[in-house]
């Protein structure tokens, strides 16, 4: 079957998580992605764990592996004139360029958007930076922790009497890659309609701030500043009345008294729990549950301790209650739902060997997600791209290597 972006040519000048996720997504639906890495060790994520069998080898980072399947890698030193010339040639024949250098760095090298537009006016250039290309913080240092802190989301997360909390896995970078992905496709669509490329300027901090849609509204609608969690915390959470994460006998779940879009009846909920005796008019509405959060916890937590997490999750979901299940990586790996949906696919990597890979997240049935290439070795496709596509000879490659260009 066909892929969605068959024939789309993407030049990938990114490193780390956000940029590589964006180009992986384009590669996953069929784009030809050429990843340009510096010859001094390549993408930063090659040095970042987890590693296959805990072996910190340049070609065994599972983070790099996950984010760079469906791409080809060439090495290019952009500080050299030969490196610049090759990039120029590649950009002439490309549809999309994705980059995540600090603002101003590519201008210094002669590849700012104004120059790029002269090289190829149809090119869509996507720049992913901590705070964007403009504004007083443009040159500030960013990291996952910093994006959470500045976005407003961290202030409103965590325990009442502890420091603000962020997610324990760098979601800000994944979210930035995803957002850059859809914005890039919108610009590609516009290019098909109009023939013109353009520059997309994405701020990672603003991506995380965009997760905060309801909370800033409470200030601009009513002057309320969101807090982390109520004082009498227990299971209750921000006025929704009992949907915190609570322990059961073998792990954690998040039970709710919500059915579909609407609040359910506490009497029905206590029957579902197998404990009709805890039904109490004090717990009937969200507001009441907030007011009596401690009592509610005292009534409900012992009952939950009699449940196992998967039993609770499946029974509650069957009965229409909204429910969350804290799953581990092991449980995801063995998830019957994911297996039945054909989520895991196997791929052979020249150094790692055969490994299962987390697959389709798009559900395109006519032009499906596909895994065509394992993550490339550093510079694995130098010969294919430089000789076969750009017409350099093998002798030239040797000279370029000597010059430090590749």
């Amino acid at each position, binding site marked *: 079957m066909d892929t969605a972006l068959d024939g789309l040519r993407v030049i990938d000048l990114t490193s780390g998580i956000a940029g590589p996720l964006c180009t992986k997504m384009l590669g996953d*639906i069929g784009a030809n992605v050429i990843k340009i890495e510096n010859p001094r060790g390549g993408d930063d994520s090659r040095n970042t764990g987890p590693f*296959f*069998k*805990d072996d910190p080898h340049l070609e065994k980072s599972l983070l790099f*592996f*996950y*984010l760079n399947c469906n791409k080809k890698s060439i090495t290019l030193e952009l500080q050299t004139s030969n490196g610049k010339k090759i990039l120029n040639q590649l950009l002439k024949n490309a549809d999309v360029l994705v980059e995540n250098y600090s603002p101003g760095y590519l201008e210094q090298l002669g590849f700012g958007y104004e120059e790029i537009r002269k090289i190829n006016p149809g090119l869509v250039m996507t720049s992913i930076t901590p705070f964007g290309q403009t504004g*007083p913080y443009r040159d*500030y*240092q960013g990291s996952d*922790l910093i994006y959470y*802190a500045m976005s407003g989301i961290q*202030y409103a*997360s965590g325990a009442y009497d502890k*420091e603000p*909390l962020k*997610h*324990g*896995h760098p*979601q800000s970078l994944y*979210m930035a890659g*995803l957002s850059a992905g*859809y914005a890039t*496709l*919108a610009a590609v*669509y516009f290019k098909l309609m109009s023939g013109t490329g353009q520059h*997309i300027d*994405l*701020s990672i901090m603003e991506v995380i701030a*965009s*997760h905060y*849609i309801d*909370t800033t*509204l409470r200030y601009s*609608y009513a*002057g309320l*500043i969101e807090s982390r969690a109520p*004082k009498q915390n227990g299971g209750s959470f921000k*006025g929704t009345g009992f*949907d915190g*994460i609570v322990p059961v006998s073998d792990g954690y779940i998040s039970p*709710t008294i919500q059915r579909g*879009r609407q*609040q359910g009846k506490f009497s029905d909920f206590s029957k579902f729990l197998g404990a009709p005796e805890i039904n109490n008019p004090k717990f009937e509405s969200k507001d009441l549950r907030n007011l009596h959060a401690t009592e509610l916890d005292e009534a409900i937590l012992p009952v939950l301790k009699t449940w196992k997490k998967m039993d609770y999750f499946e029974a509650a979901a069957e009965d*229409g209650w909204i429910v969350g*299940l*804290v799953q581990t*990586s092991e449980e*995801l790996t063995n998830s*019957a739902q*994911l297996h*039945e949906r054909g*989520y895991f696919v196997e791929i052979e990597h020249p150094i790692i060997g055969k490994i*299962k890979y*987390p697959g389709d*997240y*798009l559900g*395109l049935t*006519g*032009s499906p997600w596909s895994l065509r290439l394992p993550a490339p070795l550093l510079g694995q496709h130098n010969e294919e791209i430089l000789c076969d596509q750009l017409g350099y000879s093998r002798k030239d490659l040797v000279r370029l290597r000597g010059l430090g260009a590749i």
Partner: protein
Amino acid sequence: MPLPLEGLRILDSTTMIAMPYAMALMADMGAEVIKIDNHTSPPFPAAIHPDLTPGTKHWEWEGSHQTLHRNKLDISLNLKLPEAVSIFKDLVKVSDIVVENNRPDSMKRLGLDYETLQKIKPDIIYLSNTGFGHSGPWKSFPGIGRMMELTCGLSQFTGYHDEGPRRVGYAFFDPHVGWTSIFAILAALLYRHRTGKGQWIDLSMYQIGTACMGDAILDFIANQRNGKPMGNRHSYLAPHGVYPCKKDNTWIAITTLNDSQWKSLCVEMGNPTWTKRKEFTDNYHRWNNQDELDKLIGEWTKDFADLELMHKLQSRGITAAAVLNSKQILLNPQVKERGLFERVSHPPDSDLGEKLYIGRPWKMSLTPCSIRKPAPGMGEHNNYIVKDILGRSEEELTRLYKIGALGTKPLDQKPRVNNLPWKQQLDLGIIAGYDPDYKDVLNLKDNNQKEIT
């Protein structure tokens, strides 16, 4: 100025947060998004009313609704009636994309599933978003963003390192799903552009979430390792934390990405003797001694104002940020200069005046997007859509209203007030503060300011 998705028409038959938000973004990008509203269903339960007071049209004059439906057209259909279903089908014939997030089979029962609709519009792109997808043992399970964060594996890493898992944010996962849906729709659109073929998109929130946990899943596959709560810490960098500042409940996040940043931080701290102890001289040892390291840094930060310390550290090239609250981010100069929050003027007959809404975290140089108009009222475009788009007669329109196929007001108008008075919220710790003068603070125009209790 052109918009990137001009000329596309989308039927938005979705509810809750993730999909309506995605369709609002597509409307920002210039697609004509027709929200298929439903006057027979109760209003969205998570209401944010101006000054906590539901107005006469509280189902529209409400923060979530205004954020999630800006730039859209609105037709309100009772799809239990065949006349309304026929309107929907006629709209499909002149649309590019249909988006729905009902439980599997419910669109089939209405005769509005992909199989049926692709017979009347063969190149239609049809996206179904569900918690777990349309196949598999969990296909009928309800899925909402707030819960998916747990089920997809993110919560195994999230929480203070000496406690069980916690959530971060309120509905963090909803935008995540929404953005992925836009990517999938645009992929299908580009495919249609090349091949002329439409398709069905069977989006699963569960798979979307696990896709952003890929390295963690591979860590289990290769190394049999699961995640554990990380607090604010990093897997190898230290310091990497949030430290108290001078005013109560103000904080600064600090990390050092390399030795030179650490040296600069030591200089800023005045090179105290503890920094020369072997537990702290290199990152490897600092990471091993984080409990003490965090305490010592916190002792230093507590004498500073959060923003002042952020600027001071950043000017020395150190990775630091004040932990901004919802008021501070609305007033932040970086966010302001880039216009992340857009100012929208609401019609004078509404209770809303001017408000700020989150825009988009990216800028397009040639096709700048914006919130061009506030969310429509229920059924505001019934007449335009039925007469001007579908070419039905005035008599037909009257009949559709008469039988209740079209509507302009919800049948159930009981307000879903789920806000306690602000004093009680402050007392319970549900909010950290209340500014009665917030409209002046944000410079929001208003014609009927009132005190709230």
